[in-house]
């Protein structure tokens, strides 16, 4: 079917300024992505998958400017964690600000550097998981990312990493437009934690492809930064081998627009994937979690836990799907999406889906929207807890099921700290 003229025009305008010359396997992957993208076009409001989130600002030729609020007022995260810091400023790697990337059992390279090397491991990953994730739903912004990403890191863990790799995204220019593409490979028996934080740019498009080999473990915790006016679309594409583990948690506070897509394929038996998100939005805030988990092997477990706290007209979206393929017997799939609406102006839109082609599976999903429990609030107050603090306690309690998905207690404590800071500043 011919692509509508409007979509073609949008795509041409959006990619006009994006020229990336890549050599070797990277060049090949990018050329293929450009061809796929030309056939798809960029998302438009009418597209079913973008029904609840208007992609216009993500597909516009230029980013809308976004004020740099700075990190000062936001409670810092991960600062006390011993980690390897890799810093990107408006989407450009900053070697000076970064730590020495040497870490036992882990290889870290910049995307552009690896392109020159034929037979690089990333060749089988870059754009590959992204392309697999295009079915059954198109994700053109991810393809655009593969085609035009200007920077990114390749991380390969061959053993248990002694400390996390921490990707820090600094936003400095009010009109920055960043496209980053990372590839992560966790080899058999290896264990890696990747942290991400910071607003990154006025407009940010990111893809992270993660391959976890048999028996590998991958932990991902991110705190999507402050800067109220920023816009971001991010994708995680993960493929899991047998007996492997994947855990991803995202905290989002602020940001005019955020769309976080997570696409997971449980390809090997007995693997486990948990995706969780805690979101707090105040005012002009639109946050969309779009998750697609495919069970393609036996005895795998997946969990999706998404919680959103919304006030002053903030909008939360959840589109989550569990697809159980024929033969994926003994699947254990769980999905919950809940919102706590602190006033009547805020809105939560949820589209939970299950599609099951195996007969011996256990899958559950639920979605709720509610206000703060007045009885619990009074109970706390009657014990002397001031109303604001009581509200904060109840909000944290509401989010706790998502935060519990973070295995590392020190990291979880940081996330709670940022949440508390946000709640203090945004108390009515």
């Amino acid at each position, binding site marked *: 079917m011919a692509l509508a003229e409007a979509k073609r025009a949008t795509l041409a305008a959006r990619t006009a300024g994006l020229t990336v010359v890549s050599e070797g396997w990277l060049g090949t992957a990018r050329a293929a992505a450009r061809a796929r993208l030309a056939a798809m076009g960029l998302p438009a409001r009418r597209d079913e998958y973008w029904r609840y989130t208007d992609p216009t600002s993500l597909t516009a030729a230029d980013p809308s400017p976004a004020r740099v609020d700075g990190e000062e007022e936001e409670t810092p995260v991960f600062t006390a964690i011993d980690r390897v810091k890799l810093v990107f400023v408006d989407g450009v790697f900053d070697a000076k600000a970064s730590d020495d990337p040497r870490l036992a059992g882990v290889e870290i390279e910049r995307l552009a550097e690896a392109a020159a090397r034929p037979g690089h491991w990333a060749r089988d990953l870059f754009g590959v998981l992204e392309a697999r994730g295009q079915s059954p739903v198109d994700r053109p912004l991810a393809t655009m990312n593969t085609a035009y990403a200007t920077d990114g890191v390749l991380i390969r863990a061959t053993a248990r990493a002694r400390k996390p790799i921490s990707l820090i995204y600094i936003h400095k220019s009010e009109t920055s437009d960043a496209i980053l593409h990372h590839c992560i490979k966790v080899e058999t028996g290896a264990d890696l934690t990747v942290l991400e934080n910071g607003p990154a740019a006025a407009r940010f498009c990111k893809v992270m492809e993660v391959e976890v080999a048999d028996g590998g473990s991958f932990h991902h915790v991110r705190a999507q930064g402050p800067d109220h006016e920023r816009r971001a679309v991010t994708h995680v594409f993960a493929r899991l081998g047998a007996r492997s583990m994947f855990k991803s948690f995202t905290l989002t506070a602020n940001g005019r627009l955020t769309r976080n897509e997570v696409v997971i394929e449980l390809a090997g038996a007995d693997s486990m994937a948990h995706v969780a998100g805690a979101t707090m939005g105040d005012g002009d805030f639109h946050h969309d979690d779009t998750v697609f988990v495919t069970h393609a092997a036996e005895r795998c477990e997946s969990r999706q836990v998404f919680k959103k706290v919304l006030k002053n007209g903030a909008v939360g979206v959840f589109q989550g799907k569990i697809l159980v393929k024929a033969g994926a017997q003994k699947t254990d799939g769980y999905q919950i999406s809940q919102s706590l609406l602190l006033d009547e102006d805020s809105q939560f839109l949820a589209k939970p889906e299950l599609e099951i082609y195996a007969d011996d599976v256990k899958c559950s999903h639920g979605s709720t929207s509610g206000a703060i*429990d*007045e*009885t*619990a609030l*009074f*109970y*706390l*107050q*009657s*014990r*002397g*807890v*001031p*109303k604001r*603090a*009581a509200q904060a*306690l*109840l909000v*944290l*309690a*509401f*989010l*706790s*099921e998502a935060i519990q998905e973070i295995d590392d207690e020190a990291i979880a404590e940081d996330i709670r700290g940022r949440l508390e800071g946000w709640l203090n500043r945004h108390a009515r």
Partner: protein
Amino acid sequence: MLEINNLHVKLEEEDKVILRGVDLLVKPGEVHAIMGPNGSGKSTLSYVLSGRGGYQVTEGSARLDGQDLLAMEPEERAAAGLFLAFQYPVEIPGVGNMTFLRTALNAQRKAQGLDDLSAGDFLKLVREKAKALKIDAEMLKRPVNVGFSGGEKKRNEILQMAVLEPKMCILDETDSGLDVDAMKLVADGVNALRNGRRSFLVITHYQRLLDHIKPDVVHIMAAGRIIRSGGPDLALEVEHNGYADLLAEVK
């Protein structure tokens, strides 16, 4: 200590009147019991005193040591020394019991100009009080009242009271749902807090509790009013004859 004068209360959202002129004076160190038929307004009185929303005071006053309770936020009333052991303790999933207790205690200390209790001192305090009430440590780790049996919830109320050390304690049917041994524990917990200054208002349907917690005065509430007050014998009279005679007398 607690002085209630001609208190009239209706529901905020409806035209339903619940309290129709309650008068009550509890002096320091005294234990008063309130009995009365279901729906007579006992819990409503306790809620209005502690500041729950949804009620409207149309007339009258309530003072704690001379302070106008009705003008205060619920947390201010708590800091002023008022405590209500709920008839139906509230479950709060996601908030740990210890976090809850510690937040409450430190909030009250702050309101009184005191520093936070250190983590160690707090733990010691709670352990000691919990032990006396035979509340095991596992229970304290769980979220507030979640998965607690009826009796455990009631004991948890008394634990909170023991930790917060209020000066005016209102117990709303704390004995309901307790087995004989648990009732004894709860009564012991209450008696341990009696010190000649602290006052209690004990709402109950059963004389049995009053065998353990000896009241100075017993009140009978009916249709939103205290229709009779007397000594401990009044509770015995109710136990034997029910409320019919008393209600008839008023009419």
